[in-house]
């Protein structure tokens, strides 16, 4: 498979996934997009193996490695901070007045609702993508990806 065919296939898979995403929102079935996303990534991975004219040398590998490491170093701090907030939801026990113990319907107030958690997840997802792309551009520039040829 040629490099351009691979990019075309990747674009088609991305568009299909977008369609599946909207459909799973419509029918309110998150499992559909989750399975489709994994299948899409596997398909892209398999197609990438068959690309004949795509050279990935040690400099490309180093750029990817460095960008991934730096993304992980920043991302885990943010993820842990949000996760600690979510764990608070489990551990939070409000100090009810004594008379409320008799009332079995009493519930602790929600700190982070499921909708807000969804927004947090979206923020984390965007942050991870932006961090990776940002670091990748930085390291590609550092290791001479956009150097001007003197030949």
């Amino acid at each position, binding site marked *: 498979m040629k490099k351009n065919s691979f990019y075309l296939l990747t674009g088609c898979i991305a568009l299909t996934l977008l369609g599946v995403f909207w459909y799973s929102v419509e029918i309110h079935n998150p499992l559909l997009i989750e399975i489709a996303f994994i299948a899409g990534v596997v398909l892209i991975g398999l197609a990438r193996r068959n690309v004949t004219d795509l050279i990935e040398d040690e*400099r490309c590998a*180093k750029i990817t490695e460095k960008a991934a490491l730096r993304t992980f170093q920043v991302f885990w701090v943010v993820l842990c901070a949000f996760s600690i907030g979510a764990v608070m939801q489990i551990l939070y026990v409000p100090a009810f007045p004594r008379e409320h113990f008799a009332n079995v319907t009493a519930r602790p107030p929600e700190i982070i609702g499921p909708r807000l958690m969804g927004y947090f997840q979206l923020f984390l997802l965007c942050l991870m993508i932006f961090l990776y792309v940002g670091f990748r551009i930085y390291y590609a520039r550092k290791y001479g990806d956009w*150097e001007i040829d003197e030949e």
Partner: protein
Amino acid sequence: MKNKIKVYRAMHDLTQEDLARAIGVTRQTILAIEKGKYVPSLDLAFKIARYFQVTIEDVFQYDEVHITIEVD
């Protein structure tokens, strides 16, 4: 790390693309090495030196950095 890849390329009348194809890397990697933006691995350095049939020291020169420690 300084290198004489450009000199050896000129001696062998090779373009960056030719050299890159011969040793299995991208042209951008050869350009980055020539400009000193990227230090190649020992494996790649050997490949380049072997391609020109010279030793690694002929192609790559380690740039010694002298650090002066001031003693009070």
